[in-house]
């Protein structure tokens, strides 16, 4: 059984990042891999083990009260990351799992220290569709954030965007990113990468995927293509 921990699904759950969890759950099912999702809200306890951790995004006002809560879990989350558990952290969730966040007023909130980065909240907002390249090929999505995220030295970005900007970070199985869409339904190659990492940790093997996977992946590719067209980028090969 793959255990997927979804941190703060309600508190950081207004922008549909739960779709990442949906994609992982459904795709695991299509491959016959048993997977359970454990929701961990503010005040809840973490389970004893996890094979994959997801945390979504939300406004700064939703993130700020969670710093005190995540501090309770920081040690265990770091031990999971050290043991190779993959993490997918989106926007405010990424900030919360980083080392620290400098708020607009200059005050500093400590993060969980799972992801090798720091964030500085910025009054400037970056909003819009994006497309770019990752180590698994092209990705597309939507960003809507107001922070300067700084990766630690030597840490690679998750994506190099067509605009020239870099998004997020990747360090082994740890991913922090500002991409919505949500990321995994829109870019299923990354859903399968995370699922494979988690399955290996859990000792779970799957079978050949259901035909539905090819259909949904075609829809996702066309979604990315539509975004690329709106950004004036060349169409993807069929």
């Amino acid at each position: 059984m793959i255990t997927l921990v979804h941190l703060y699904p309600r508190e950081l759950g207004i922008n549909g990042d739960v779709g990442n969890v949906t994609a992982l759950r459904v795709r695991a099912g299509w491959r016959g891999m048993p997977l359970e999702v454990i929701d961990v809200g503010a005040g809840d306890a973490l389970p004893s083990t996890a094979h994959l951790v997801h945390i979504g995004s939300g406004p700064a006002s939703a993130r700020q009260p969670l710093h005190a809560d995540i501090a309770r879990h920081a040690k265990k989350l770091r031990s999971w990351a050290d043991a190779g558990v993959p993490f997918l952290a989106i926007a405010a969730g990424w900030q919360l799992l980083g080392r620290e966040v400098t708020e607009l007023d200059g005050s500093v909130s400590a993060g969980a220290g799972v992801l090798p980065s720091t964030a500085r909240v910025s009054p400037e907002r970056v909003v819009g569709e994006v497309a770019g390249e990752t180590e698994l090929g092209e990705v597309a999505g939507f960003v809507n954030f107001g922070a300067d995220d700084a990766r630690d030295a030597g840490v690679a970005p998750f994506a190099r965007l067509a605009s020239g900007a870099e998004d997020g970070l990747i360090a082994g199985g740890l991913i922090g990113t500002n991409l919505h869409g949500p990321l995994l339904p829109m870019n299923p190659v990354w859903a399968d990468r995370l699922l494979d990492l988690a399955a290996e940790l859990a000792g779970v093997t799957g079978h050949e995927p259901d035909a539905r996977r090819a259909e949904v992946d075609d829809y996702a590719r066309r979604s990315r293509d539509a975004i690329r067209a709106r950004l004036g980028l060349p169409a993807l090969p069929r």
Partner: protein
Amino acid sequence: MRTALAVLAGRLARVLTRLRGGGSAFPGRVALLIAPRFLQRAVENLPLGVVFVSGSNGKSTTTQMLVSALRENGVDVFTNPSGANLPQGIASAILATAPLDGRLRNTIAVLEVDEAFGPQLAKRLVPHSVLLINVQVDQLNRFHEPDRVVGMLESFAAVATRHLVVNADDHNLVALASRLADRGAELSAFATDPKLLAESAWLARGDNPALATSQAAPIAASTRLVSAHDEVAVIEVDGVGVDVMLPARGLHNAVDATAAFAMARALLGDGFDLAAAARGVGSMAAVYGRGEVIRTPAGEELELLMMKNPPSMQVNLDALPEPPEQVLVAVDEGTPDPSWVYGTDLSKIRRVDVVTGTKCWQFATRFAYEGVRVDAVVPELGPALDRFLALPPPATGRKTMVVNYEQMMLIRKRLGYRELEGAS
């Protein structure tokens, strides 16, 4: 003189845009260009002044309910048509009724105002009373942080000197009201029965943990929604209950009616006639595009469910008595990031006949993950609509369209509905 010129030019613009079948904001823009104080002047002499209605969702419905309740109570009300909630839209509405001196002759103006434009509108129109319905997840690409929306509402709620009416179930609004407690306006509140509230999706609730930026001591509500079933709500004002026929089904419409009653009660004081208010709301037609049923040229019924933002889509789906037989979904760039639809409970949708709009592939992806069968994905609206309308008539006699605002407008146009929202 300047005002008369503004009125004449605005009226001319109105005739021209109507001939063209165009937008409703242009005449107001013309009038405001010629007479920058056009809005101030229009409302200056209203005996009962100006009332604002705002919030993330339900502005148009609540405003029209408040207007209906007041009119049935014998008050001569000026209002802006649904959605015409920016300065130019309000100016256009004034042009449609004010004489050459530009001064409204009604008793009171009840205006729906956009959250972001509320502060500047308040400077010009000086509302003595403000009704705030909710702060919900809305257009994060535009508003970014709910704190900003709270700040906008607060800045014009602070202008009120007579009545501030808020939703007692909305943590942000309760906190806002407590911050404005000593500003001179009398505070009153409306509330929904906790059992009903518990049935509502957390996304649409005022205790939403992702949005409630502050905690405040609860406030008592003298206007309460006691029950809501199909299109009938029971609302209690000062302990006296009344049945209210809603213009469209759904808990959100019942809450909007409760909000409207609370403000009507505050404005009219002891003169408020509850039965008359219920009659007023009971005689309303559905508000433009909100749970509205329109007809095709062939006489088929089309139910429009708007998906402006996550709470509005969820409450519209939740209000469906059963899964719709035939469904068209149409979403375009008016919804720049539809990611949030993964947080929506789609269990009311069992099948989708056609998905269209520039975001069609993202919606097809979403439905595929839900295991909902999608018959056709047709990016262009024309062929998509043709295909949908050509389907054999459903047993219920009604087809359902889940649409964003922009697609709704295009669909109406294609079906021969010339009138635009905001055109009075």
